[in-house]
Structures are given as structure tokens and as C-alpha cells.
């Protein structure tokens, strides 16, 4: 059977499963549509949260980033998991107690202000739309490679599938589909990793293999990798980072952003009890960690495999003949994500870090520049092929990558559509709308959001990595501080919250646009995006944490300079702090 047929079976089979689940779990009320009826078991919810959270970025890109950056890119591992600690302790249980459908719902009611609700809707939509573009593009890339269609066709296929199960099933359908997608994606991620870890270290558990002995050389795997990359002029894989402030702030931005992303927060509205929201955050992180603890092993092993494929006998010996290159290089060359130019005309592939400090060594070896460029994003998808694993593993990876992109896209689209139908239409424009009418509005706005995301996915403004950073920056600088202050401060009032959200949002946007161009239009940036120009060495991607601090500071000052919130709001804040029924709040306020 051809590889194409195998891919088709795996991808097609997983789609049939998702659509079957969506039909079985159709939503029949707004409560089922928005929060799955509030009756999801915490472990099930944890698994669905994990699928919701782990996007194409986690599945496809992250290991590639770590492979390229080594220790320096550990920020992604810590940043995208540490946010769950903040969620479990600072947000999830209280929001569950509050018992509403959406994030703007909480902000609007807590700050007794429709303006605050609208600001929250805008932050939510901007953060979610920018994030969903990346998912559509990611699904398109996976489809085009594995189903051998154009990436345009791939994006349309993805749109139709998401439309089916998200629009019909709502949160209930999405939750059960995401459970299936989690199972598919985690199997797809770990099986190749186990094989590769066995091949390289003899240890079947990748997270232990990473710190084990490399079988061929008898050295520890990471020491071997450091040696190999050093001989090719790269920085040591485990080398320390000098700009620690930026590393801390970047990790912090990712953590706060994780805790502030609306599609993750609304997952905690679906469990039956407050205590379940706490457990559920823990289970979500367990399921996420299965991938995140494996990813660094995949990263280092794939880097080592890649370099030893090109230099089978070490850096001093002749490199691989281009004509003898393995099949995976040939197939990825067709996508343009791997490319080769024979700069010194010797018919071999010299793959190294062509920096001035390494020039002397390169000259001595007769190398005239780096000849192979490999896009980081292909690493996980190409990994089974690089390690010569059987065809069904490749089919599995295809299904897994697509599951990761689709599950996150569905969660984001639900967050967008509920903000439009519930917060904008029901709460602001047309309060007398019937439940049926609201569901119809939710489904139509979801259809609209899918079309918009598809359009933007087809015409990406060319800034995938930046938009993800923007989504995190916005969530970190606007949504997270507003919710947290709404719970932990009875004194915080509407003016403080609105001023804080706007200050956090605008300062973050301003800082990002200063270096990356106004609305990311190339050449409109006011300063070059280099470390020398950054304020205190803080990169635009790390600014979300600073934006959050600005939000907290401004909100505190403005709130204390204006009137305290009304008594019933202070009682409301007291009541969300205790899991017991809302009645307890009245006799507690004194």
C-alpha cells in the first residue's frame, strides 16, 4: 500500500470518528452549547482542555523551536505549562462559582459596566482571531503534505470539518470530540518518540532517554549533541543564556497569557462543582505534560538524527552526497520547506552555522557557506521519516497534527461565537432574544468566524509567529489582570478595570508595533527589531508580562482615586470566594 493510501486511511478514519461523536453529542440548549450543560467530569474536562490547549504550535512547531534553540527555548515548555498553576489557584474555581457562560460575562457583571464587557469582548475577539489564523494555516500545511492537495484545498477541508462538529455540537460536541482528538494526538506524538528514544539510547521512555547514554558513542546523549553542534559552529545545545531578564519576562508572558486565553478559561465553566475546577486544572496539566515532557526529547534526538544523517562520519569527514539524500529530504523539498544549494560545487550537503567566527574552520574544510535550509516546523512531521519508521507511524503523525490544529480551532471558534451571540447580541443589542434565537445567532456567528479564519488562513498576513505572540500579549496584558483583580480585590471598581485593560492592551500593542510595524505592515516599524534597540533588553514577544504589570498598576491607581464599587458588587466578590451556595455571601459581608 502506498504512503498516500495509509495517510488517507488514518486522516479519513479520524475525521469519521470526530463527526460521529459530534452527531451523538448534539447540543439542544444554550447551556449545552456554551458550557456543555455544566456536567463534564473533571478528568474528561482535563483531557478536552489539553486538546483545546495543545495547538498546531505545540504539536508541530514547539519541538522544532527547541531543537533549534536548545536550552534557550525551554521558555516555551515552562511558559505553556506554568500558566495552569495560575489558572488553578487564581481564576478557575472562582469563575466556576460565578457560574456564567463567557469571560466578558464575568467582567461585565463584576464591574457592573457594559463598557467593561465590550472592552473584554474586543480583547477576546482580537486574541482569539489572531490565534485561530495560525491553526488554519497549520492544518493547511499538514493536509498539503500528507494528502497531496494544495494548501488552499487543505484549509478548505479543515474549515468544512470544523464547521460540521463545532456548529452542530457546540461545547458539548466539541468537548467529546476533543477527548478523541487528545487520544489521537498524544499517541501520534509519543509513538515515534518512543521508537527514536529506543534507537538512540535503548531507553523506551523519551523523557528518561533524553538524559541517558547515546548508544553509538557511549557518551551522554546531550553531551554528544553539544559536541556535534559545536563542530558545526552552532552554539552548544545546553548553553546558558546571557539575557536572563528577557528569558524570565518571556516565560512570564507565556504563563500569564495561557491563564488569560478565553478558550482555555471557559473550559472550567463546564465542570459540575468548584472543587472539580481545581482538580480539572491538574488533570489538564497531566495530559499536557505527557506531550510537553516528551517534546524536549523529540527536539534533541531529532536534531542529532538530522545532523548525523548529513554528516554520517562526523564533521571532519565528507558530508552526505546530494544524490544519495534520503527520501524525506526529497519529499520535503517539494513543499519548499527544505532547500539545497550546492555552494562549493562538490555535490555534497554542507549543513552548518555560517557565522564569521566559524569561517576559518569552514574555509579549511573547503565549505563555502551553509547549503541546506530546514524549516523548524517540519521537524516533528518529518521525524518518523528521518528515523526510518514504518509507514503507519507517518500516517499517525499526519492525523495527530491535524487533530491538534482542529481541536484548538474549534475551541477558539466557540469562544468567539459565544462572545458575539451571548455578550454582544443577548446582553448588549437585543436582550429579549429567545433561547432558540440565541442558539441560531451563536451558530451563524460561528459560521462567520470560520469563514473569516479560513480567509485569513488562505491570505495569512505573513506573520504567524508574531500573531501568536500578539494573542498571548493581549490575553496577558488585558484579560488576566482584570479577572484576577475582580476576584481578589473587593475595592476594584469599573473605572479602574477599564483603565487598566486599556492601558495594558495599548501599551503592549504599542511596544509590539514599534518593533514589528504598525499592524504588522512591513517597513512601518519605528525601530529595528534588534536586541540593541529593545527597552532594557525586553523583546516585543516578552512585553505581555510588562503590559500586565501596567494594567495592575493603572487599575489600582484609578480605582483608589474614584468611588468604591456598590455594596452588592462587593458582596458578589465575597460570594465567588466561597464554593458554598451564593446565599452565604449576604451574612459574610460586614
Amino acid at each position, binding site marked *: 500500500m502506498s504512503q498516500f493510501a495509509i495517510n488517507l486511511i488514518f486522516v479519513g478514519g479520524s475525521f469519521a470518528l470526530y463527526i460521529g461523536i459530534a452527531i451523538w453529542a448534539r447540543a439542544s440548549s444554550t447551556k449545552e452549547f456554551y458550557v456543555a450543560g455544566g456536567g463534564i467530569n473533571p478528568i474528561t474536562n482535563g483531557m478536552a482542555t489539553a486538546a483545546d490547549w495543545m495547538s498546531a504550535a505545540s504539536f508541530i512547531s514547539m519541538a522544532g523551536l*527547541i531543537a533549534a534553540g536548545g*536550552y534557550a527555548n*525551554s521558555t516555551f*515548555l*515552562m511558559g505553556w*505549562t*506554568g500558566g*495552569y*498553576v495560575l489558572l*488553578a*489557584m*487564581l481564576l478557575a*474555581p472562582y469563575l466556576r462559582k460565578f457560574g456564567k457562560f463567557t469571560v466578558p460575562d464575568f467582567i461585565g457583571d463584576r464591574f457592573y459596566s457594559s463598557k467593561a464587557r465590550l472592552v473584554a469582548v474586543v480583547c477576546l475577539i482580537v486574541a482569539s482571531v489572531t490565534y485561530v489564523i495560525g491553526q488554519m494555516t497549520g492544518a493547511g500545511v499538514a493536509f498539503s503534505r500528507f494528502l497531496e492537495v494544495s494548501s488552499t484545498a487543505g484549509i478548505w477541508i479543515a474549515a468544512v470539518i470544523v464547521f460540521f462538529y463545532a456548529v452542530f455540537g457546540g461545547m458539548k460536541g466539541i468537548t467529546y470530540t476533543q477527548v478523541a482528538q487528545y487520544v489521537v494526538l498524544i499517541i501520534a506524538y509519543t509513538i515515534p518518540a518512543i521508537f527514536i528514544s529506543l534507537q538512540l539510547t535503548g531507553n523506551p521512555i523519551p*523523557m528518561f532517554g*533524553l*538524559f*541517558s547514554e547515546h548508544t553509538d558513542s557511549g*557518551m*551522554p*546523549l*546531550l*553531551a*554528544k549533541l*553539544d559536541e556535534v553542534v559545536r563542530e558545526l559552529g552552532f552554539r552548544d545545545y*545546553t548553553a*546558558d*543564556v546571557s539575557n*536572563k531578564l528577557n*528569558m*524570565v519576562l518571556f*516565560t*512570564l508572558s507565556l504563563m500569564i497569557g495561557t491563564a488569560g486565553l478565553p478558550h482555555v478559561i471557559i473550559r472550567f465553566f463546564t465542570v459540575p*462543582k*468548584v*472543587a472539580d475546577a*481545581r*482538580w480539572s*486544572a*491538574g488533570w489538564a*496539566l*497531566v495530559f499536557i*505534560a505527557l506531550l*510537553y*515532557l516528551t517534546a*524536549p526529547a523529540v527536539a534533541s534526538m531529532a536534531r542529532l538524527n538530522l545532523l548525523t544523517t548529513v554528516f554520517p562520519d562526523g564533521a571532519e569527514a565528507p558530508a552526505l552526497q546530494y544524490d544519495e539524500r534520503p527520501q524525506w529530504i526529497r519529499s520535503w523539498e517539494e513543499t519548499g520547506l527544505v532547500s539545497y544549494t550546492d555552494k562549493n560545487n562538490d555535490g555534497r550537503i554542507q549543513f552548518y552555522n555560517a557565522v564569521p567566527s566559524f569561517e576559518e574552520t569552514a574555509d579549511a574544510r573547503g565549505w563555502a557557506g551553509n547549503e541546506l535550509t530546514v524549516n523548524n516546523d517540519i521537524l516533528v512531521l518529518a521525524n518518523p521519516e528521518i528515523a526510518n519508521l514504518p509507514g503507519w507511524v507517518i500516517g499517525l503523525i499526519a492525523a495527530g497534527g491535524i487533530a491538534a490544529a482542529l481541536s484548538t480551532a474549534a475551541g477558539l471558534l466557540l469562544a468567539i461565537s459565544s462572545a458575539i451571540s451571548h455578550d454582544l447580541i443577548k446582553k448588549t443589542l437585543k436582550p429579549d432574544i429567545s433561547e432558540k434565537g440565541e442558539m441560531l445567532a451563536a451558530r451563524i456567528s460561528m459560521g462567520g468566524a470560520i469563514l473569516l479564519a479560513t480567509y485569513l488562513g488562505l491570505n495569512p498576513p505573513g506573520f504567524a509567529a508574531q500573531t501568536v505572540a500578539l494573542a498571548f500579549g493581549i490575553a496577558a496584558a488585558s484579560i488576566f489582570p482584570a479577572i484576577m483583580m475582580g476576584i481578589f480585590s473587593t475595592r476594584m471598581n469599573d473605572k479602574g478595570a477599564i483603565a487598566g485593560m486599556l492601558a495594558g492592551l495599548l501599551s503592549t500593542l504599542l511596544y509590539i508595533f514599534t518593533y514589528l510595524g504598525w499592524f504588522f505592515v512591513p517597513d512601518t516599524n519605528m525601530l529595528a527589531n534588534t536586541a540593541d534597540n529593545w527597552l532594557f533588553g525586553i523583546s516585543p514577544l516578552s512585553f505581555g508580562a510588562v503590559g500586565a504589570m501596567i494594567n495592575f498598576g493603572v487599575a489600582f491607581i484609578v480605582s483608589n482615586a474614584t468611588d468604591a464599587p456598590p455594596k452588592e458588587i462587593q458582596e458578589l466578590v*465575597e460570594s465567588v*470566594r*466561597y*464554593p*458554598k*451556595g451564593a446565599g*452565604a455571601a449576604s451574612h*459574610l459581608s*460586614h
Partner: protein
Amino acid sequence: MSDEKSPAAQYWSANLRLILGCLIVWAFVSYGCAILFRPLLAGIQFGGTDLGFWFAQQGSILSFIGLIFFYAWKMNKLDKKFDLGE
């Protein structure tokens, strides 16, 4: 001072103390061991590299899981003690 507080206020300050303790550990393993104190831990070898690297790529994530379950377990006990659970 705490004698004069209502049970609900005691519950809330116990929660705040617990959160603070957990967040100190949270910051210590990630920002501390994995980033800022990595040079200090460089002497401790671990699987071909140093302990700070392990914290950055494995240890901090494992600690986060432990923290959340510890917090959920403690809070359930507090909910029961103050009879404020559901």
C-alpha cells in the same frame, strides 16, 4: 487578630496563604532553578548536563503538576473544615 475574624474570613486568608506558598515554589522551580540560579547549579551534573537544564525541560513541569494537585487537595480539606464546600 485571627480570633476576631469570621470563619469565612479565616477560610479566605488560609486560602491566600496557601496560594502565596504555592506561587513561591512555582517561581522558585521555574524562574529560580531553571533560569536565574542555573549558573549556581552548574556544578551538579545530571545526565550529560546540569541540574538547571533538567529543571528547565522537565523538573519545572513536574513541579507544576504536583503544586496543582497539592493545592486542590488542601483546598478540599479547607472547604470541609470551614463547611464552605458544595
